[in-house]
């Protein structure tokens, strides 16, 4: 078991033939991801990396039974690409694209509201279920199959956590990079919820950062529903108010947005909070051993 993604997922890549799409598709295929094709409007009927290219997501669903898509199209076309996948009946959509206008994402969220679909991202590294499939841009080799689920708003900081977990002789069940934008498809709470229900996950690492209320929302849910330990870290303890720290969503607006306030809420909700990002793996190990 794992969440969102496994070796049976039938994946199509939107923006398949572009530079990013091509590079990461090769990496994903090497990892064992079941990529069955790609979508590039106007290039339908061609082959790329030995897989069929379709004009529309609907065609890929009809002909290849695609249930999962990953999006590498430029920001100005990305919102449309997400909605196209949702309309075609795709169940899991990962959007890697960074820089989508916020008002486009407001519309996307409204569009997805009553549909049976899960969007992860945008502006995220994707999802990986080690040993089964990789749907994203993360380096596969740092992962190891195991029982720690990871949820994070960041890319390289997630890799850091993964690496610490692996080096502490543990492994990962599924890692979900939810993305660094102000509006994301899957919230911290929703990702934690999936991992909490997953029988293969024994512990959860939740990595947040300044800005927004997603970590607090997740923490309150954890307090009420916790069946396994959660280790938390919040990046940006030294970030100034009102400045965007790289991620469009990493900006302190009010007092509840600070790393300090979030860490306090996490602690109050029974999460093992680490102050140093160097202690994430070690703390998970200690918590599971105790």
């Amino acid at each position: 078991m794992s969440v969102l993604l496994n070796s049976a997922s039938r994946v199509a890549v939107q923006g398949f033939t572009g530079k990013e799409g091509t590079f990461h598709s090769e990496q994903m295929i090497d990892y064992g991801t079941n990529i069955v094709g790609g979508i590039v409007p106007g290039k339908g009927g061609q082959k790329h990396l030995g897989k069929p290219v379709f004009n529309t997501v609907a065609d890929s669903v009809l002909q290849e039974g695609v249930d999962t898509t990953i999006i590498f199209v430029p920001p100005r076309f990305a919102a449309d690409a997400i909605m196209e996948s949702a309309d075609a009946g795709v169940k899991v959509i990962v959007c890697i694209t960074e820089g989508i206008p916020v008002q486009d994402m407001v519309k996307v969220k409204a569009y997805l509201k009553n549909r049976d679909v899960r969007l992860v991202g945008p502006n995220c590294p994707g999802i990986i279920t080690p040993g089964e499939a990789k749907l994203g841009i993360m380096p596969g080799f740092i992962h190891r199959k195991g029982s720690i689920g990871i949820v994070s708003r960041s890319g390289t900081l997630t890799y850091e956590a993964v690496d610490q977990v692996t080096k502490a002789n543990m492994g990962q069940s599924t890692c979900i990079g939810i993305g660094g934008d102000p509006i994301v498809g899957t919230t911290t709470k929703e990702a934690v919820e999936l991992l909490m229900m997953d029988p293969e996950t024994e512990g959860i690492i939740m990595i947040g950062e300044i800005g927004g209320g997603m970590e607090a929302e997740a923490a309150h849910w954890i307090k009420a529903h916790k069946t396994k330990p959660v280790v938390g870290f919040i990046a940006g303890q030294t970030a100034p108010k009102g400045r965007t720290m790289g991620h469009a969503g990493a900006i302190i607006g009010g007092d509840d947005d600070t790393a300090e306030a979030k860490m306090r809420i996490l602690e109050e909700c029974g999460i093992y909070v680490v102050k140093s990002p160097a202690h994430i793996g070690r703390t998970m190990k200690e918590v599971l051993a105790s």
Partner: protein
Amino acid sequence: MNLHEYQGKEILASYGVKIQKGKIATTVEEAVAAYGDIVEDSGNDVVVVKAQIHAGGRGKGGGVKLAKNEKELREHAGNILGMMLKTPQTPGGIEGPGKLVRKILIAEDSYAPDFDACKEYYVSILMDRERRQNVVIYSTEGGMNIEEVAEATPHLVFKEYIDPTLGMLPFQSRKIAFNLGLSGSAFKDMVKFITNLYKAFVGSDASLFEINPCLKSANDEIIAVDTKVSLDDNALFRHPDLAVMRDVLEEDPTEVEAKEYGLNYVNLDGNVGCMVNGAGLAMATMDIIKLSGGAPANFLDVGGTADAARVESAFRIILKDPAVKAILINIFGGIVRCDRVAQGIVDAYKSMGNIRVPIIVRLQGTNAEIAKKLIDESGLEVRSAILLQEAADLVSEVLA
């Protein structure tokens, strides 16, 4: 991207929102010419001289003055143009150095002819992250700090959430105007004001519109007297006409330069510079610096390609800050190979000749061991680490 008051008003006016009319001036002579035009247009000798900088609270710092005649106008324009305006929102606050005023807005007196018949309101529009939809926040208590109003009298601050697929509906703009206690022609004008304001917000891909005060004038017109507008940088590709409104003189010069190199840099007050790939890891690295007894001098995300040219420009940017006592480079090589980054660091170091502060390099991920060896054998004054904790310990060591 933040805009000046006068630029925000230009956007509003283009959507049919009534604004306090004014003209921009960069010299006293231009101000006098603008004064003549405005007096002729309004039939009123009184104007307001408003400093145009990217910060609120301008009135508190002496950046907004009433001029009753041309003599007063010359005096105020002369004083305000070129002044270092200190407000609670300029860097360092009122104790800080302030911001240089390069432009002034000469604006009509919207409160004429009967100040006491006017009433100030507050209206803003922004995207609510938790609800994932736009919200209009408004209050009968205009002209004041809305956070203080919300604290003291929360029942006087209203919110109206807008359906993203339908936009603002007629009943919503009516509700807003009723809740503000308006009637008659002022009511009708407010409905129109709010409707057009929302169109302007969506049409310009704004992230914030704040109209404070939003004035009901003596003749029952609704007018935007002051505006604070921020636009979504990610949407500027749709708005070339708005993109050119960026005033780089209002931004930190080092941050502007960093952006030209493709680096995401934010200048901070500390003593340890850092260079990191990825925004989350960059924030985490700043946290490590603090936990190691230092304070971060910056946020810097070098992005995906950490080659020699990029590393060198990052070094130059960081070293512009004289407070920097050490530099921590933290790269997690996934797709980027650590040995390539290490070579980039060595090359950049050699090309720069002499770097005045100790450097700690932590490279982890693809080819991390080869990268460490490369650094260690380079003969340069660079300390290397693989684990994040080792890097933290090295920061403590060089600061001690």
